[in-house]
């Protein structure tokens, strides 16, 4: 029976099958490489383009952090009236001290510098943990799907175990034990990767189960190609499109997880490392003392980033034509 999963867009009406999209009609397909076709489709998705531009700007902001707040880093603070004593968002001290305000630790810190420098760590955590967890998911899923039998059984049950434990409480538990609010970015990447792979594993396993029955696989096997070569050279490229989409969306999800850990004071330690997440620690105290901008601005950047990544993910889904395969 065909069950549609919650949240999936299970309807055949919206979805345009392999037929050519606008703009592909006039030009003959032979002249376009596969990548060019993907790019044309992605380009026609306006929100995805907007998302890409936003993401490029965010990455530029992270790279150029020292230029945006010269001389001021998240670690720069003042207890007295050294120039950043203002208690609200202000352009008076541009560029160095814009948005100088009371930090969670009751010292005067520049919110802007925490946003720019924090972007480095938050984006890094989001991207790396998505890549690592997808890598684990691909390897485990490929092995389970290709070999089948008891190997598949064991690996699938392990995946079921991970999928049955609700993700957020699991991440909170592991961070409470290993990070205890004194975590390094690397540790948080490790935790998010450890928890994040089962979705990709399922996806890859399902694709491999059908791919391994096809003639080209059988041909490769008949010629005596090594199984791992078959998996990675012959089958994997055919299973990669949905993985790319899921990995892209996972970047946003992991940024939110990092921020949630920071908010619960179980994430990356500050000082020394500022992230968008740990800027949100003690948000309640900041709100109670009237410093509403303290949680609002880092949170706003998280929201923009996640929105941009979701747009890109949507565009990739259309461009790579994986909607049908994700179901």
């Amino acid at each position: 029976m065909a069950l549609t999963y919650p949240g999936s867009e299970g309807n055949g009406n919206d979805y345009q099958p392999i037929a050519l999209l606008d703009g592909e009609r006039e030009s003959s397909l032979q002249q376009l490489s596969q990548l060019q076709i993907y790019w044309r489709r992605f380009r026609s998705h306006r929100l995805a383009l907007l998302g890409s531009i936003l993401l490029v700007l965010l990455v530029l902001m992270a790279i150029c952090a020292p230029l945006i707040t010269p001389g001021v880093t998240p670690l720069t603070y003042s207890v007295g009236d050294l120039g950043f004593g203002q208690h609200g968002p202000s352009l008076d001290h541009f560029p160095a001290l814009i948005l100088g305000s009371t930090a969670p630790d009751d010292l005067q810190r520049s919110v802007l510098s925490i946003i720019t420098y924090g972007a480095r760590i938050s984006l890094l955590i989001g991207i790396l943990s998505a890549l690592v967890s997808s890598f684990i998911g691909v390897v485990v899923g490929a092995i389970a799907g290709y070999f089948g039998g008891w190997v598949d059984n064991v690996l699938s049950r392990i995946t079921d175990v991970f999928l049955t434990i609700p993700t957020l409480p699991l991440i909170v538990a592991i961070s409470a034990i290993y990070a205890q609010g004194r975590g390094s970015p690397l540790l948080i990447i490790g935790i998010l990767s450890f928890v994040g792979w089962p979705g990709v594993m399922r996806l890859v396993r399902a694709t491999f189960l059908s791919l391994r029955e096809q003639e080209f696989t059988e041909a490769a096997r008949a010629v005596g190609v090594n199984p791992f070569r078959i998996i990675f050279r012959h089958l994997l490229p055919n299973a990669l499109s949905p993985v790319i989409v899921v990995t892209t969306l996972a970047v946003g999800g992991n940024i939110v997880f990092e921020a949630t850990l920071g908010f619960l004071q179980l994430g990356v330690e500050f000082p020394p490392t500022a992230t968008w997440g740990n800027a949100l620690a003690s948000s309640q105290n900041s709100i109670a003392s009237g410093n509403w901008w303290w949680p609002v601005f880092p949170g706003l950047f998280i929201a923009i980033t996640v929105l941009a990544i979701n747009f890109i993910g949507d565009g990739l889904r259309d461009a790579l034509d994986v909607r049908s395969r994700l179901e």
Partner: protein
Amino acid sequence: MLAYSIRRLLLAIPIFFGISLLVWGIVTTNPDGGPLASFLGKNQGKILTQQQIDNYKHALGLDRSLPEQYIIWVKNLLQGNLGNSLLTHRSVGATIQERIVPTLLLVGTSYTLQLLIAIPLGIFSAVRRGTAADSLITVVTYVAFSLPTFWVGLVALIVFSVQLGWFPVLGIVDERTIGAQFATPGYWDYFHAHTIAAILDVAHHVALPASILALVSIAGDSRFMRSQMLEVLSQDYVRTARAKGLSNRAVLLKHALRNAMLPEITNIGLAIPTLLAGAIVTEQIFSWPGMGQLYVQAAQGYDYPVMVAYIMLLAVLLLVFNIITDLAYAVVDPRIRYS
């Protein structure tokens, strides 16, 4: 059907043990040299002598071998004995029972709200497919879906509670007027004396957190409902109903909606445990005295019996709801036969 149910239950057993092993493993193999070391390091470790620590270890059974510890823990778990909290020394089971009421109140209100908004929204989108209203709904729900819960919650707290003062800033009841905490004997005295005021008070407190929790989840449900409805609307029986001259209303409500609602059952069943877990952040923002807050406090203070109990409870709920949903689906949709 019976055979299928039994097989589902049997399949759940190894997964249950897998979950228990993973959760227990995470807790006991921690880098500080055991869960007690972590707890003491976080709390009163400095004032205890080695002798006291050893006694403590013995009382908690932590001086046994790891396999022994695991077997004892699982045995107790299966008998419903969740141990005692290290922080409060109270039974974890009793603490969770106390905390589950506020959480169910929050999650129940929010989920009702979510369904009441998402389902009509999805149907409307499907019926008016391709219009400006449909696109607007799609964009708005998509943006809401992308916003992180804690940020929406914090902004709502700042705007509606702190700045505008429309809603209380924290808690489930107004402790100052009542003079007692929620669910204490003093509170129940007040509740019996001023029932209507007490209910209104709780409603006032639950409104904002429940709306926030609902807002971020509306997108998924309304999109799902929209696509189900679109699929049903293209079916032959809907065309037949229209052909025999039924009013648009009758076609939509009697023929299309009832069929489109079927898959929603899967959604509802699976959403309940997920919602319980999702309430962690919302409870933290609004200082809601529920299970999520209990769990975060336990994690911050390394109160491991509470942490383990909470995760196991959610995992078991998920397992059970998975099975119930599957079976319920077969009951309401006679076309589905499990074999």
